[in-house]
């Protein structure tokens, strides 16, 4: 699993939970909340979908690591790799 693939997974989840957002031009290094209208309820759903779809657990104290696509990739890629092995 590459960083790019993980970013796509996160984008797919955002597309599902917030279909009214335009995610075609999300900048990976900018905080998601600055580009998209996402609130804490939406972030809870991102975490819940990561678990439901991919079996990835994100404890509450790590929610801040999902701030941007880059930080998502940084934080989640090792988790996806551990899952795959």
């Amino acid at each position, binding site marked *: 699993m590459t960083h790019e693939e993980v970013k796509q997974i996160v984008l797919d989840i955002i597309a*599902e*939970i*917030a*279909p*009214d957002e335009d995610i075609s031009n999300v900048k990976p290094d900018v905080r998601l909340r600055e580009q998209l*209208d996402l*609130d804490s*309820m*939406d972030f*809870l*759903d991102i975490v*819940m979908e990561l*678990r*439901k779809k991919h079996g990835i657990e994100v404890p*509450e104290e790590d929610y801040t690591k999902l701030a941007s696509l880059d930080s998502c990739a940084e934080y989640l890629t090792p988790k996806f790799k551990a899952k795959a092995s």
Partner: protein
Amino acid sequence: MSTLEGERYDAVIIGAGMSGLAAGIRLALFNKRVLILERHNAPGGLNSYYSRSGLRFDVGLHAMTNFVRQGVKGTPLTKLFRQLRIPCEAFALCEQYGSRIHFPDVQLEFTNDFTHFESQIADKFPHEADNFRRLVVALKAFDETALDYQPCGAKDVIKKFIHDPILTDMLLLPLMYYGSANENDMDWAQFVIMFKSIYCEGFARPFEGVRCILRELTKKYKSLGGERKMGLGVKRIHTLNTHAKALELDNGSMITADHIFSSAGLVETLRLCDDQPPNTGGEHIGKLSYVETIHALDIQPSALGWKDTIVFFNTQKEFTYRCPQLPVDLHSGVICFPNNYHYVNDEPLEQGWLRITALANYNYWKSLAPDAYQDAKTEWFTQLTSTALNCLPPVSVDVLKSHTVDIDMFTPTTVERFTGHLGGAIYGSPQKNRNGKTHLDNLYLIGTDQGFLGIVGAMLSGISMANYHVLKND
């Protein structure tokens, strides 16, 4: 037919109203095994429907509040659609024509465009225009959904901004009628919720009314594998120390659940628990109840000159919002025309409808024997109708009668029967419990007594309690 005996659920929800269905969708979405139990045969609770002699009656819902046009972000309505994963097109909301607050010497119109309301206030209350703007700034900055909020009276806060008591009453009347469980005041956070949902956002309605909303919620819930049992209520919650260990159902079956969400109301839920005395919480039972008269017409209201969507009226100098001494308080109320929305292609509803809501005295209606109850309904139906006619473009009682094909009326005892709220308390207990916690660690309140009011508030209540008590801690 399954009795459910011995079944085990991740979550059981008491009541298939707006809050219960919304909580059920959230939990089922994340693979919880969920059961919604509803004592009645129709879903909706306070907001429901029935058919009689071929006519499709709606009860409860006058309008869906919180309307914003597609693309407006960050409002309760958009949050709701996202959290429920229901596309906003599903409700097919159509906007109101316009509504009115009718007082003896002054009227304020409002639409789904807040600037119209601001200009009405500037026009009718020029001395208060700046104060009103400051009030709006203050309430927009307030976080009304914080679960740790400490209640305070709205009138005290409004007084810091608005000095004209008539304007204060005019602002309060629609918000109280659409959501206050407190007599003669409302909680400040409730005021903010209702102010934003009614004045800043606005009214809309699906062509099919509340049926459409309930159908979409039910469809979503079932598609996620949620289970629902109609015509079966919860008789008792069996406890062990501070834990709800089992639910005993009306049919005698016992089931268990890790989590229980109750929309029955604060006092009503406590009284289900076997560790509480039978009359517990009596002081928290709400005192406000309503009657509503319904005229089904063979003509569209607009053909009679009635083009308002909703009229909030008060015929006295001062507006009082409390349990009346008389059976019905004829001094104020709400007149609703479900026909007066911008439906697609201007398609008219099959029937014309005139619905009139007013405060009523529960104890009076409860005390009546069946015959006297019918007589009282007839008498107060007539009186309330003629009061309301005085607040509308003129149509005589005889003309209205000649176009009336059916009538109905609900009273505080009807509210009690269909919502289970003691005292027919339309908005439940004045005591709200924002975080939904009870004396039991796995029993939570949702709906009216959790305290997010209005139909959108009710759904957000179910959503936020499911998130807060179950999904977040998973």
